[in-house]
């Protein structure tokens, strides 16, 4: 059974009437990919390629798409399968006027964890992300790197089997970045499947064993990382050097 299987997904932010009237394109068009369990898979593409849209579809945030998404064999959207997904969005999606522990407690209840589970898992993920000493502080007092780590901790709280990361190291210092890399390697070693969306080629090359490259909602490349010599060069060759301002 695959951790994630996406088959012929098409999605547009515009209505079908808009599309037929103005020929407005799809955010994703006949998109298919799959990830084996226990792998770290890179999702690469220029801005506007459809990476975040894909993440939103997998997590059930966006609905009304054509095609099928299966998470650990469950056809999405499925509430039970949602609990097996952990998601750290690109934005720091935390409540700034709550403490780290209060944030973890809140999202723990949303994930339907018991009070004891929340307490135990909060301790574990805070230790994993190096935030134990700051658990009682308001998130608004955290540095950018600490907030980014807590963003990851919340995603790990309910011990998901599939972890979706959207730019998990954007705007952090090399120390925090390295800490996050090590955390992800440990999680993967314990059997967690990770889908990593990133613009940092060296990050993808360092962590991931397979890669999907998409542009304008369509797949450009899908295969093992080992097949690519220089990821940045490969990326530019496949997607072009022109700026993406639209």
């Amino acid at each position, binding site marked *: 059974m695959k951790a994630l299987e996406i088959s012929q997904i098409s999605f547009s932010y515009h209505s079908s009437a808009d599309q037929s009237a103005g020929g407005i394109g799809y955010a994703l068009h006949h998109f298919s990919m799959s990830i084996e369990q226990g792998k770290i898979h890179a999702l690469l593409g220029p801005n506007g390629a459809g990476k975040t849209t894909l993440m*939103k579809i997998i*997590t*059930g*945030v*966006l609905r009304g798409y054509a095609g099928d998404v299966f998470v650990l064999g469950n056809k999405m959207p499925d*509430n*039970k399968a*949602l*609990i097996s*997904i952990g*998601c750290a*969005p*690109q*934005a*720091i*999606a*935390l*409540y*700034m*006027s*709550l403490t780290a522990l*209060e944030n973890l*407690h*809140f*999202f723990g*209840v*949303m*994930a*339907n964890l018991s009070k004891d589970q929340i307490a135990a898992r909060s301790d574990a993920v805070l230790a994993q992300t190096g935030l134990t000493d700051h658990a009682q502080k308001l998130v608004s007092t955290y540095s950018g790197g600490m907030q980014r780590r807590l963003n990851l901790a*919340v995603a790990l709280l309910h011990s998901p089997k599939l972890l979706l990361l959207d730019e998990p190291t954007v705007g952090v210092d090399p120390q925090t970045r390295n800490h996050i890399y090590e955390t992800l390697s440990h999680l993967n070693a314990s059997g967690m499947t990770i889908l990593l969306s990133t613009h940092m080629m060296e990050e993808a090359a360092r962590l991931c064993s397979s890669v999907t490259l998409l542009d304008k909602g369509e797949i450009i490349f899908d295969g093992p990382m080992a097949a690519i010599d220089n990821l940045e060069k490969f990326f530019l060759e496949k997607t072009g050097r022109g700026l993406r301002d639209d």
Partner: protein
Amino acid sequence: MIKRQLSEIVKKEMHIMLRDKQTILLLFLMPLALIFFMTLAFKGVYADKIYEKQISTMIENESKTPKANLLEQKITSNKLIKRVELPPGVDKDRIFEQGKAQVLVVIPGGFETGTSPVEIYFDPVFDTGYKVAVRSLMASLTVEVVMGIENIDAVVAGLITEKTRKDMIVPNPLQLTVPAYAIFAMFFIAIPMSIGFLKEKNDGTLQRLFTYAVSPNAIALGKIIPYYIINIIQFVLMLFVGVFIAPSLIGTPFQTGTHPWHLIPVTLVVAAATTGFGVLIATLAKTLEQTSTLAASGAILMGVLGGIMVPHFVMSPLMQKLAMISPIYWAHQSYLDVFLRNANLNIILPKLAVLLFFALACFLIAGRRVKWM
């Protein structure tokens, strides 16, 4: 599961709201300050207008006859009048310009025979209510002097008498400002409510919530319930201040009416209307700036129309009719029904029905417009 998630969302909203000092200032301290200051400001417009206020009056006795002197003495000794003398070197035609007096009374020769009437001049900006009171006083005193009556009030007592119900006190500004600014503050809940919703939408926390199996209904209810509770707390606090604190500080009594338990349905319905307004603003606004502008200007406009800033009874007939388009009017009148009119529930219910209709309309429009992402 949904109940637990809902309760946690409510707790989270409460935490966030109560840790925001600006929200506390806006929702609790602003209306308290307004109740105190507006009560003091309006004090002169109500009962103590006649009984406490003294009107600066200059008297020119041109006649100097015994009757003219008696009239001068009667005017001077009346408690409504504070006699002022024309300062040396000041032209009496310019006293209003210089703010030396509000009224000038000229007693001409022959006023007793009706050949030259007593003349009253008013400061052009003088309140009409005071003008009527002074005119009425001068008429009474002149009749007393001319007709040789000792006390005209005693004479007319058999013809006219003022009856007040035993359980009623004279309406005072506190009776109006407590419900008025409680309602006003309750409508201001739309500001933190809509800002909170938009912030969560923008910072990605709302999106993150949807990655768990949380129903949109639980999220919506979880966002409405805390503000509904805060609205009720706001009213209870304002009522507490109105009943127990303000009277001793301002010296103005406050009565809760003979059916104070009617405040429960009124407050529950008013809170539904205010949270409905908040939800509507949250779905109409696209930016944080828009939420503040729409919510604040909406609440102020409804307050002005509804008789919060300017009491409904002093409005022109047209404005009194226009006031009815404001839900704040219906809310305020419902509270006045309880506090001052001792109204039965069947009198209040139609007003509450209007407020419920407003609340339902807001929730319905918001439900159609809401975009979670």
